[in-house]
């Protein structure tokens, strides 16, 4: 081995033993800077996202959208933008919405999403018809247990599963209830989850009642769920923050085409610059790590 080979091998060796806190610092900067100085990225919707969007967009008018908040605050960053985007889409197209949660810790997130989106629409509303009103245009059924009973019971009669809504109002007394009695009145249930709950919706609600299921999932679970997309058991799927950004883009295009006065913040889309930069940084790390590994291995030989 020549002296220059030894020096080169020593460099790569040191690089492989670098304190991992330097890596954390680089990732911190790489993620933070594009948030402050974003470079414009326009997400292009992939087929799983556009299929879900198209179905909700074109499903029969009398059918409601049901959103199941099956996530907790630990996955809020990835999944909450999906809930917001779905609610905006439903309200913009005049769909009734029923929301429930299979997670106790998800209740607050669902309530916050409904409050935020309803106020976005109500600020621009000029008539009662334009407004989005709790109990008339949407209902937050809340939480019940066990989820197996919830999923099977909703196919029979929703008010039996949720006698009172999240706010403690008797569901039978709500004006929306005659329009959403059971799964027959629901076009699709979209389960937004950081766990395997969408598969439970398929196994219980879809197998028993034939209801369509859509899925919003964390990126970690996405690879496992593609088989259910391929089999048609999922009508569509939003995978991670990127999926949410793609849905936001489709909705923005639709609202722009319709000349809507709504100007809505798109948190997932705003994050795409950082996401892209972080992915590039990690690819560079992996390449450098592999070069270092092979160089040091050759040095040892």
């Amino acid at each position, binding site marked *: 081995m020549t002296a220059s080979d030894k020096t080169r091998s020593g460099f790569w060796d040191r690089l492989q033993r670098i304190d991992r806190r330097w890596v954390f610092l680089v990732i911190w900067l790489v993620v933070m800077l594009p*948030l402050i100085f974003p470079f414009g990225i326009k997400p292009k919707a992939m087929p799983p996202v556009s299929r879900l969007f198209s179905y909700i967009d074109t499903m029969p008018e009398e059918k409601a959208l049901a959103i199941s908040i099956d996530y907790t605050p630990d996955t809020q960053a990835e999944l909450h933008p999906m809930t917001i985007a779905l609610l905006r889409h439903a309200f913009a197209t005049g769909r009734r919405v029923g929301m429930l949660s299979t997670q106790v810790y998800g209740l607050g997130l669902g309530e916050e999403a409904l409050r935020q989106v309803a106020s976005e629409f109500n600020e621009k509303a000029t008539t009662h018809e334009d407004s989005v009103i709790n109990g008339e245009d949407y209902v937050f059924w809340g939480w019940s247990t066990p989820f197996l009973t919830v999923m099977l019971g909703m196919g029979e009669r929703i008010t039996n599963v949720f006698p009172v809504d999240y706010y403690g109002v008797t569901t039978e007394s709500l004006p929306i209830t005659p329009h959403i009695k059971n799964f027959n009145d629901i076009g699709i249930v979209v389960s937004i989850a950081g766990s395997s709950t969408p598969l439970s919706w398929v196994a219980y609600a879809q197998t028993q009642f034939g209801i369509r299921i859509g899925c919003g999932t964390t990126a970690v679970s996405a690879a496992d769920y593609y088989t259910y997309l391929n*089999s048609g058991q999922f009508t569509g799927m939003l995978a991670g923050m990127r999926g949410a950004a793609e849905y936001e883009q489709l909705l923005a295009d639709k609202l722009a085409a319709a000349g809507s006065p709504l100007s809505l913040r798109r948190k997932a889309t705003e994050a795409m610059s950082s*996401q892209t930069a972080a992915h590039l940084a990690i690819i560079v790390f992996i390449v450098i790590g592999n070069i270092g590994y092979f160089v040091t291995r050759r040095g040892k030989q």
Partner: protein
Amino acid sequence: MNIANPLTPEGIWVWVAAILTMAVFSFLYRENPFYRFAEHLFVGIANGYAITFYWHRILVPYLFSPVSQGQKLYLIPIAMIGALYFTRFIPKVSWLVRFPIAIALGYGAGASIPRSVDATIIQQLKATIVTRASFADWQQGVWAVIILLGVICTISYFFFSSERKGLLKPISYVGVVFIMVGFGASFGYTVMARISLFIGRLQFLLGDWLGLIR
């Protein structure tokens, strides 16, 4: 820069959340008391929230209130069976916990096995079978064949009843390739997920707390 005002009702909570976030992130440098404090606080609050929720939203309205008014008295024996879970804390009678567990397992298994078999095996098998309809367009047909090959080769890799030689050897080798591609896809998605969570926190710190981004 428009930092959240800690003297307003909303601002104080933004500051609490921001300080706790920084305390958790401090673990990236090294283990420290701030991280420990945030961790223990989280566990305590999460449990306290859940217990309070179950008490006020489940036990009181669905059990104690109706029973105390003489309604739904059939709930009393059901609640007593459920209460047997607590016998775990009394070693002499801890065997009684088997009753509620047996009921829950029996109900769960009976309700889920037939439906899960249909959803996760039968429907998946149907989606794997290549038919004439699979070739409605050439791209769809190619993917259908790849999926079929992938399933056969991957299952072959997990066929342990005979030695891996002859035809089984190359087929299972292809199966390994499919498995590795699957692992790669999962890892890529995992990276994306973890970065997304970090972005979410930074959006909060830079936006809601420091006001650097809108």
